[in-house]
């Protein structure tokens, strides 16, 4: 007679494999950031050095900035554990804790979406906000409601934008010398524009090709759509994210932006293309809208989430007073992750679909259409060179 071990079915687990598991997913996520980090270094470091606008050592500043962000987050998280968790009293215990909480990620992401000349103390403030308030106060990895990096970003954007601009802002030493840009990022230019005009919006930065490559002014590492696409392909290949989430998100913004263009009498496809290539949309779609902890879990939920994200991004970007809509839209939608997850889980598991479930579907559909329609019509009429909608509809907005 021998006593055997107890356990719960199934007794085979993929997670027992060394090459599979949450830690591997997180490692792959960090690898996916590499193309963007390298591009940020090329654009804001190497190229500027080659132009002769900065000194040799200054060239590495973008990399240092991102690494410092990761370090700060790790330090804050470690301190939080040491102070609050009685079990964490030795270095070894702290090590095991940090191993399963992926502490560096919020800081790295935050550093990547801040302007290049953000003072380090502002980064410290942002990382503190991101890690402590955005993540640890909710219970740490897996329990946070909001995307921690975006919490840090929004805290900075609402309070310290002036400080960052005074310190040099987003434009690197080469970009500041270009006359046509007048010190503004593309979306900054857009929010100051009163009409949709290719020559005013795109030409100062080159062409849409520059938007795609990312050689336009913007936050440190989020400008390159190409780098985001490389990361996207890697993530899909490694199954880190669901392939359809960024597509639905970006697709919604594209369609709605096109609608705005049409409403404003600018039917060209350049405008929606410009819209999805500028700002943090690509970055947000690949890295933030797919962030597993703070977005819905079931496939239908992810799609609904991405749809609403698109609608709110358009609303915040074109109607709201902030130049950048993506970060706000994602954090705003994070609030609704739980109800969306619950509703879509019910809808998805129901077959045949019951009456009550149809009601839920109808509510979601009406909400989406209303928000999308409002965003399109309102901003479309704002940019309109001539009144394309009837005076009555015009009067409503």
């Amino acid at each position, binding site marked *: *007679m*021998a*006593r*055997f*071990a*107890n*356990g*719960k*079915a*199934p*007794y*085979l*687990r*993929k*997670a*027992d494999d060394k090459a*599979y*598991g*949450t*830690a*591997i*997913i*997180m490692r792959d996520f960090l690898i996916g950031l590499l193309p963007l980090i390298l591009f940020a270094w090329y654009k804001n470091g190497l190229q500027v050095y080659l132009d002769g606008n900065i000194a040799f050592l200054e060239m590495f500043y973008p990399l240092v900035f991102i690494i410092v962000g990761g370090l700060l987050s790790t330090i804050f998280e470690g301190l939080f554990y040491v102070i609050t968790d009685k079990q964490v009293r030795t270095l070894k215990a702290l090590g*095991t804790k940090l*191993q*399963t*909480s*992926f502490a560096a990620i919020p800081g790295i992401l935050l550093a990547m979406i801040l302007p290049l000349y953000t003072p380090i103390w502002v980064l410290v403030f942002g990382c503190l906000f991101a890690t402590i308030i955005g993540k640890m106060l909710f219970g*740490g*990895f*897996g*329990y946070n409601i909001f995307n921690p990096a975006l919490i840090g970003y929004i805290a900075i954007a609402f309070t310290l934008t002036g400080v960052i601009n005074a310190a040099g802002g987003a434009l690197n030493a080469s970009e500041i010398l270009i006359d046509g840009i007048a010190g503004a990022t593309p979306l900054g230019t857009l929010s100051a524009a009163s009409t949709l005009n290719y020559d005013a919006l795109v030409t100062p930065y080159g062409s849409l090709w520059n938007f795609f490559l990312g050689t336009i002014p913007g936050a440190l590492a989020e400008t390159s759509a190409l780098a985001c696409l490389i990361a996207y392909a890697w993530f899909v290949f490694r199954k880190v994210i*669901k392939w*359809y989430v960024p597509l639905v998100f970006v697709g919604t913004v594209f369609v709605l932006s096109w609608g705005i263009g049409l409403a404003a009498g600018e039917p060209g496809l350049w405008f929606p293309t410009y819209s999805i290539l500028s700002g943090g949309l690509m970055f947000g779609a690949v890295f933030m809208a797919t962030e*597993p*902890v*703070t*977005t*819905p*879990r*079931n*496939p*239908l*939920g*992810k*799609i609904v989430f991405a749809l609403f994200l698109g609608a709110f991004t358009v609303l915040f970007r074109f109607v709201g007073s902030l130049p950048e809509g993506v970060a706000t839209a994602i954090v705003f939608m994070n609030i609704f992750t739980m109800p969306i*997850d*619950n509703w*879509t*889980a*019910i809808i*998805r*598991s*129901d*077959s045949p679909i019951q009456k009550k479930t149809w009601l839920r579907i109808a509510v979601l559909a009406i909400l989406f259409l209303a928000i999308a329609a409002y965003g399109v019509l309102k901003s479309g009429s704002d940019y309109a060179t001539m009144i394309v909608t009837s005076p009555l509809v015009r009067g409503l907005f």
Partner: protein
Amino acid sequence: MILHKAKGVRIDGRKQMSKTAPLHEFLNPRFVYIPLIQQASPLKRIVEVGELVKIGQVVAFREGFGAMPIHASVSGKVTAVKKAWHASGRMVDAIEIENDLLHTPDDAIRPEIDPDAFTKPELIEKMQNAGLSGLGGAGFPTYIKYKTQCAIDVVIINAVECEPYITCDYMLIEQLPEKLLKGLKYFMRAAGANRGVVCYKAYNTGIEAVLKPFLAAYPGITLFPVKDIYPAGWEKYLVQQVTGKSYANLPSEAGAIVDNSATAIVFADAVEKNIPLISRVVTISGEGVRNPQNFLVPIGTPVKDLIQQCGGYAEGLDPAKAYYIAGGPMTGRAILIDELVVNDTLGSVLVFPLPAAKNHPACLGCGQCADVCPVYLAPTEIQRAFESKDVEGVKALNANKCMQCGLCSYVCPSHIEITDFVARAKEFARKGA
């Protein structure tokens, strides 16, 4: 489509382990222990300690739903009523019979002269008298399926064996291919169906090879290979693949009856020779067994005897750091003490070492569990509703649809016991109303 695509996950089969050795007949255990329980219903014993019994003699009755007789699997003397470990993970009462090694058959076991003459009700009665229950794992009384009011158009033989390690159905079919077709023929007659389908995994070309030569003599019977995914052997999946129809509760709603291949083989004997359900094939496999193989054994055989026949446990196996599983690795049950006895639903016993310990993070919300769920549930949502004791919430999330295939736990990158949560939530919602 993304939302409702055909579901399943490819899992490393590990089947070759137990396929190398031929099917081993082990008909002479010293003692057998006939468990006095079937599914969840206790059986009524009708033999006393000291009584002599013959092979096939009725020793107990199942009463109420699925009432039928249970038979002695060896001839000999009833020596005790003892507790024995059962595949359900509990100790149950069992009739201990000391084998006299004479193989004396009961008078009821006699060949039929014209088995093809039986009518539908007669065949169904034979199922009941043979104590025939599903040998695939659920142990559902077979005759109940055939007493349906629905018109049956196809009988599906399930020889898919989608769980890793298990090869008992495959080995038995390889041995007795024609008997399978005969059993299916009788099943079709009992159901009034003119179509019979044998489902097996497409890579199991051996099944096709052994069945093909006989097919011409059995009109209406076709072979149906299915994809190598888990859970391809799930009843609903097979019915959907074969008929294209879906159903809510029972396959008969879609005009189908699904039976395990081993059940069909036993039924062929029950019709032609009046041999009741007294033996079955068990796979003994896993990295913790020295020579994995399949055994044809009388029901009630102690699994210990079979492990001994396999050469014992693998060298250096530490039982405290190994699983001993009754059933498949996905849906089976860990048995703590290796005193298990073979019952009608036990298709395999697996012994393998526990995986190396790993430091697992919390749920990251990746949603893979919802992604792989064959019935489109959202396990994490069900867990959340369950943890906040929300009966209505669990019900609204259709937790009752879960059939505990185990895929959500299998794919979870954070090693969360999510299948167990859903199972408990299901139970909670059932009771909580």
